[in-house]
């Protein structure tokens, strides 16, 4: 009888969507634990400005995975509502970053002082990338162009636009305070990007709790016709998810440019769109839209970063790294595929049944 009960709960855990990314994360961590426990070492030190900072692989994962986690939030919503993905986020992040630098530098590529408060620059960037999101949103929602294709436009143009905004200059900000967003705020030992990601997550949780965004996007993603007959405006909801993603992208842009205090239009946030989509998928969300689990996506993002960091740790050649990543990703998705899981549960049931028989 007791056996039955445990079996039932095991089954339930297996069925829960969030199980997939958590299991993946655990597997990676266990792998590291076995091969080299120093992976888990976290030390408190001081950085060159004399501020206390934490460091270690785990901190690196939290730090570098932040951008991806933030993007995963917006990408999950877009995926849910439109059943497609935005592949322009990397390019839009370049635009956002370029705008920030443009406002901060005021047209002079190497200013002594920042020409505007950072918050102003950031808000302008938010506006810019919300506009980009709105552009995508209009194409997708109103003109009914498939998301991947609609966003192909900004994907093609984005980096050029970013270069154009700064007239092809590569501005450098030397002000210390600008680097806080990609580094550490004096007195706080946790990497700021992670704090920002945390803030974004909290905001998302609040939004999910105090609005009906979740229900609406899912309803629209699953059945547009019936959502419409229930008084929803699918066009607007799809549109708004792109705008929200735009905000996420602006935050990512800020972190990215702050990390190195300058920008390189052709490589900033390169290929991040693929990783963001991967995060959504690793979270067990259907890329065809509909139901989603935000937490799973966010964990998915950190899984990807954990994987990258692990591979760097083992000194895998960075250009060969995708190959290893691919193998792990395939293993993960295969083991979480419904058919495979059904097969597992079946054999698992078979084994336990046999055990029970033997005992009884």
């Amino acid at each position: 009888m007791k056996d039955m009960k445990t079996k039932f709960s095991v089954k339930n855990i297996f069925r829960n969507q969030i199980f997939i990314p958590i299991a993946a994360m655990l597997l990676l961590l266990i792998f590291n634990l076995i091969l080299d426990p120093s992976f888990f070492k976290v030390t408190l030190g001081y950085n060159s400005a004399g501020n206390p900072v934490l460091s270690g692989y785990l901190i690196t994962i939290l730090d570098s995975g932040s951008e991806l986690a933030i993007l995963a939030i917006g990408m999950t919503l877009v995926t849910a509502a439109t059943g497609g993905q935005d592949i322009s986020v990397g390019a839009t992040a370049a635009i956002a970053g370029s705008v920030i630098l443009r406002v901060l530098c005021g047209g002079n590529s190497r200013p002594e002082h920042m020409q505007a408060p950072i918050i102003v620059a950031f808000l302008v960037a938010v506006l810019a990338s919300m506009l980009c999101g709105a552009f995508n949103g209009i194409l997708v929602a109103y003109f009914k162009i498939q998301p991947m294709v609609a966003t192909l436009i900004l994907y093609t143009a984005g980096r050029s636009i970013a270069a154009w905004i700064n007239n092809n200059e590569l501005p450098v900000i030397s002000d210390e305070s600008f680097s806080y967003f990609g580094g550490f705020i004096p007195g706080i030992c946790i990497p700021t990007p992670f704090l920002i990601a945390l803030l974004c997550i909290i905001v998302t949780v609040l939004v999910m709790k105090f609005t009906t965004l979740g229900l609406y996007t899912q309803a629209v993603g699953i059945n547009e016709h019936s959502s419409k007959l229930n008084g929803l405006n699918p066009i607007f909801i799809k549109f708004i998810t792109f705008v929200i993603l735009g905000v996420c992208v602006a935050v990512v842009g800020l972190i990215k440019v702050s990390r190195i205090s300058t920008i390189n239009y052709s490589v900033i946030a390169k290929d991040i769109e693929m990783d963001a989509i991967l995060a959504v998928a690793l979270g067990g969300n259907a890329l065809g839209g509909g139901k989603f689990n935000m937490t799973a996506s966010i964990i998915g993002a950190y899984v990807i970063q954990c994987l990258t960091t692990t591979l760097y740790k083992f000194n895998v050649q960075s250009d060969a790294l995708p190959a290893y990543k691919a193998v792990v990703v395939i293993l993960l998705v295969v083991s979480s595929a419904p058919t495979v899981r059904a097969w597992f549960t079946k054999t698992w049931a078979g084994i336990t049944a046999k055990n029970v028989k033997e005992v009884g």
Partner: protein
Amino acid sequence: ACGNSSDSASTDTANDAATTDDAATADTTATDDAAAADDSASSGDLIKVGIINNDPNESGYRTANDKSMKEMFTAENGYEASFAYSLKNDEQITAAQKFIQDGVDYLLLSAADVSGWDSVLQDVADAGVRVILFDRTIDADESLYEASIVSDMAKEGETAVTWLKDQGLDEYNIIHLQGVMGSAAQVGRSGALDEAVKNDGWKLVTQQTAEWNAEKAQQIVQSVIDSGEKFNVIYAESDDMAKGAVAALDKANISHGVGKDVVVMGFDCNKWALEELLNQNWNYDGQCNPFQATYIDEVIKTIEGGGEVAEKTIIMDEKGFDATTITQDDVDSYGI
């Protein structure tokens, strides 16, 4: 006369149109050539140049390079220039084919990849267009181009490595950040270091490509720091990557620069990089001279004047800067 078999096989509607188009084209070809000749005459004998360059926002170096080309090849200087930019070799090749058909007189080329150019250049030669390489060499027969005005990346590497050797460090534990694999700059700058590592028993803590990307460089260096391995030299093949590496060092409170724990080396001589040198935060920056435009101009003038180009390969004059000796003047005159 419809040579394009695809069209005739495709659809009925398309077929008619295609046939007439092509026929029309064939008819007008002859007259058009004459017209083209008239054109060039009427526009005051401007020399038509097609310039294929890498995307200018690739790096500060490229921006400066593109700017200098734009300033040189203007109508005032007697040129009619078309530009094509791409970081992808195949797109560059397509652009070259296009320039041939557009009937340029000179093709100026800074190739994304060293390989894959010989058959295109053959076409170019067949069309009677002259080729001048700038900035980057390619892997093709010398007869296919008139001149090559390039940086000697291997020499840049050697200068840097010699400098490093002269520092006389107790031990050399090096983080080597490479550019995009296979680009001339990467091959040249890596070559010298690899050689030294082999001969002098230096240790490569890690050798990774960061693809000219500061962020990637930061991640790679971060990973080395996290692993706790010792290192005392960062050999970054571009300023951008050096900057990324330094960001990681700062985070971990590892001192760098003149007389500090880690020696930081970069390439390209961006102005901001030279300023870092001036502040003694970095140790070395190798120059890569982007100003080939005047040389190219000279070559073209020579050829147009019916003269022979004296040297087929012109190597740009380049230096390496040491943080201990650099002056504000250097920054102003060599920074790009």
